[in-house]
């Protein structure tokens, strides 16, 4: 309980008054390397003791920080323009669930590793292992969540992190006396399959009139979407499409101007 109390957030600077509880801090996931992941828990403000626990991951890779999910998507607070304070998000998901934001892997946001080389060789595998270790040890700190319904959610490259963590939990549960009550996961605009994602992406660009027929046919004929690394000719065509044909748009929201 001491560890939990030490993580209790009394109030964040510039935060409006709220009725739900918040906790944040570090969980060590690898003693040898000195790797620790940072979390922020915003409990539900209705029935926090019975609502499910939802662990939210963002993508990148390298962008699963509290800048996205927590601060501009599903979290209870939005940050104002000057960064001087917070205001409430009317459609926060902590109306119906306890939200656990995880900065993963080490090197993202406040999560860190004392072994600096970790930032140069982390990938899907270590991220799933460390996130599982985090969850197991976090539940020791918050035992009231040990048998709670757990869901994973995320977007973008978390289309990798979320299913990979779900698979790691299922494998852990098969051997554990204290299985994690994982019920499911939900992912959005999720990186799923190299070949079909890439094929679908250039098809979307063409069907939404973002690129010319000529560029579309060049992409289809010069790119081998099964490869991680495309040929120079393919890369050149991609660059032409984005630089010359897309125009001044926000690729993440195609009918809006980019953030300067």
């Amino acid at each position: 309980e001491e560890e939990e109390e030490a993580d209790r957030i009394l109030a964040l600077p510039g935060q409006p008054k709220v009725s739900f509880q918040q906790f944040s801090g570090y969980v060590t996931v690898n003693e040898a390397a000195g790797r620790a992941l940072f979390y922020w828990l915003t409990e539900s403000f209705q029935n926090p003791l019975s609502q499910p626990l939802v662990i939210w991951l963002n993508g990148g890779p390298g962008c699963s920080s509290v800048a996205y999910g927590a601060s501009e998507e599903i979290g209870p607070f939005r940050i104002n323009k000057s960064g001087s304070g917070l205001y409430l998000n009317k459609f926060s998901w902590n109306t119906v669930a306890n939200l656990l934001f995880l900065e993963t892997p080490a090197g993202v946001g406040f999560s860190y590793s004392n072994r600096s080389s970790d930032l140069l060789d982390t990938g899907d595998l270590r991220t799933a292992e460390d996130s599982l270790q985090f969850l197991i040890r976090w539940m020791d700190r918050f035992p009231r969540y040990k048998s709670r319904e757990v869901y994973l959610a995320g977007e973008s490259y978390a289309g990798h992190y979320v299913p990979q963590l779900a698979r790691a939990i299922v494998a852990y549960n098969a051997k554990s006396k204290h299985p994690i009550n994982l019920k499911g996961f939900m992912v959005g605009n999720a990186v799923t399959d190299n070949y079909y994602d890439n094929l679908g992406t250039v098809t979307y660009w063409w069907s939404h009139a973002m690129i010319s027929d000529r560029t579309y046919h060049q992409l289809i004929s010069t790119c081998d979407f099964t490869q991680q690394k495309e040929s120079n000719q393919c890369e050149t065509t991609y660059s032409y499409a984005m630089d010359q044909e897309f125009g001044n748009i926000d690729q993440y929201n195609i009918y809006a101007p980019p953030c300067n």
Partner: protein
Amino acid sequence: CTEKYAEAYYNRPDVQKALHANTTKIPYKWTACSEELNRNWNDTDVSILPIYRELIAAGLRIWVFSGDVDSVVPVTATRYSLAQLKLSTKVPWYPWYVKRQVGGWTEVYEGLTFATVRGAGHEVPLFKPRAALQLFKSFLRGEPLPKS
């Protein structure tokens, strides 16, 4: 540009203190993304579809959604990928509604629910917060999205 607000807020010492963050004085600023990790990403699955097959077989509830004005991982990319799972349909394609507006379209397959979110970009809850909350509530209840 909301990312910039986060960079301002989370680098404030008083905010880090309140969050019990940065207790080891990390030798770099807090940033929304780690360029170093991104550039040196070591291993990545070429496809996650085999994991989907495993987890569908394990009986997990799986929902996949897509904001339809994102061009980075667009709705056609997700549809081409999910089509490879060759799942049978439980509830055929229909428009779902939120506050008497079409929130998007959806289809319920055996083992997976797919839904688009009309007018939402890559970060769906940022662009369509009301629709995203409805999506989340239906997911948690394990119920198909509202037909009206």
